[in-house]
């Protein structure tokens, strides 16, 4: 088939900003919800005068934030509960597909009402691939900040981890997690899945007042990312990422390189958090459509296509070929060799 070679829609390169906004909103929500819950309990107890000064502060701030939207905080604020692992939004329950799969493994039964809550995420993943990892996951928010921190350290001359492992390792982790859940009869994949951990632990800290065991695990993954492999947990180990990758294998919305305008600068490869190879059209099932490569591309050579499979490798960028020809005029060998090949 012939592919269109026009310029990408001008807003695509700004999607990365929207993505950061989405990640921030999700994370802010996870922080706000426990405070709302605490505020609700104060309201339900009619106990303002019995609260400690710091608790009264929480009460006042939350009351100011919610007053325009709710009549009765004790009831109306029940509209949104939970986190990205499983949540309730105005009566609609949404759950991570891994939660449904882990539960089926733990109970060795299919409990349909719960699978129904995972239906919308599964359908969205079939269209947009691993989008959860880049656009929603509250752990991604922290992991990407961690990556930025690592690049500061690198800039300061310190050594940070840049090792590579086999990306298929995470499918093994997914299988092991499900087997472990089946053996123990308890949904243990939830204990090694960072977004579930982050959502829970934020609630534990604010709502109950103390970290759970998951925090240790999450800090471990942060150190792994920082000291051993850049974004290593998501790339090589995350069981949910593995499941989303499988769901997104034949996704419809993909990123494509426009070979006519690509100048082979490789910035896309450098910026890709998941260690993919946009420069050589290597997106695959693990691309999460985060659009960081689109945002960084200096020649606007990346765009979206609707196709259930990647474009096969298109060879070096045409602009890059001419560019190298112009800049190697003195001997001209590089360009000539490439033309011959």
């Amino acid at each position: 088939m012939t592919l269109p070679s026009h310029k990408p829609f001008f807003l695509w390169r700004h999607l990365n900003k929207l993505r950061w906004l989405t990640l921030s909103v999700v994370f802010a929500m996870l922080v706000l919800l426990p405070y709302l819950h605490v505020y609700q309990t104060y309201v339900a107890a009619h106990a303002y005068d019995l609260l400690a000064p710091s608790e009264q502060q929480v009460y006042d701030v939350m009351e100011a934030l919610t007053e325009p939207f709710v009549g009765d905080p004790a009831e109306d604020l029940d509209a949104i509960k939970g986190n990205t692992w499983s949540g309730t939004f105005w009566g609609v329950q949404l759950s991570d597909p891994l939660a449904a799969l882990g539960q089926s493994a733990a109970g060795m039964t299919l409990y349909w009402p719960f699978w129904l809550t995972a239906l919308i995420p599964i359908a969205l993943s079939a269209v947009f691939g691993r989008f959860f990892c880049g656009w929603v996951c509250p752990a991604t928010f922290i992991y990407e900040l961690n990556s930025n921190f690592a690049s500061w350290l690198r800039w300061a001359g310190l050594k940070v981890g840049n090792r590579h492992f086999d990306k298929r390792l995470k499918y093994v982790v997914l299988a092991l997690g499900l087997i472990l859940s089946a053996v123990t009869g308890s949904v243990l994949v939830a204990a090694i899945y960072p977004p579930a951990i982050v959502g829970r632990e934020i609630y534990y800290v604010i709502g109950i007042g103390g970290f759970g065991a998951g925090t240790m695990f999450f800090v471990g993954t942060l150190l792994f990312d920082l000291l051993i492999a850049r974004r290593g947990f998501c790339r090589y180990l995350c069981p949910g990422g593995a499941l989303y990758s499988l769901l997104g294998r034949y996704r419809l919305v993909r990123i494509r390189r426009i070979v006519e305008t690509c100048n082979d600068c490789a910035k896309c490869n450098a910026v890709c958090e998941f260690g993919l190879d946009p420069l050589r059209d290597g997106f695959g099932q693990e691309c999460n459509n985060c659009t960081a490569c689109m945002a960084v591309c200096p020649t606007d050579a990346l765009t979206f296509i609707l196709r259930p499979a990647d474009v096969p490798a298109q060879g070096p960028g045409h602009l890059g070929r001419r560019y190298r020809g112009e800049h190697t005029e003195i001997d001209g060998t590089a360009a000539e060799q490439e033309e011959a090949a």
Partner: protein
Amino acid sequence: MERRNFLQALAASAAAAVVPGAALAARNQPSLRYLRPPGALDEPDFLARCINCGQCGEACPNRCIKYFSLENGWDSIDTPYITPREKACILCMKCGDICPTGAIQPVARNAKSIVDGVKMGHAEVDESLCLSYQGKSCGVCYRACPLPDAAIKVGYMEQPEVLDKCVGCGLCERSCIQMPHAIRVIPSHA
């Protein structure tokens, strides 16, 4: 379910061969007396259903639902529980309504449904500690009970007697003025 029991036995024998058993022995410490939220399934089914999302705790207007770390073993990690002496369940039934997995079953908020559908445990009176049995008329547990005369009745000198319809919410244990408490809920999963 048989398949799971088989797998569990397989894993237990494998673990016994490899691990010294410290992690597995953490289960069922007598000192760790906890209740599951109202409407929870039997313990093995509950553990298989619960995905540890934390919505029950977030819905609880009384903030009595807490979450295990590793103190009750690996398979209880991040599952909800209630320590009635610290804060007891007020039987508002919001946790069952919000639970996405049915690990906590929805129960209507009326006395009949609660008596039929909730089995967190059963209260027991220690007569050697109870003030009313020691000649000081008290009756606090009776007044704290959300199902008075159905779950608990008082007789001579307000001496309490727990009846069959006790659902184990723990409000009596929470309110007992004796220290250590003379009435306590024995969890139904124990």
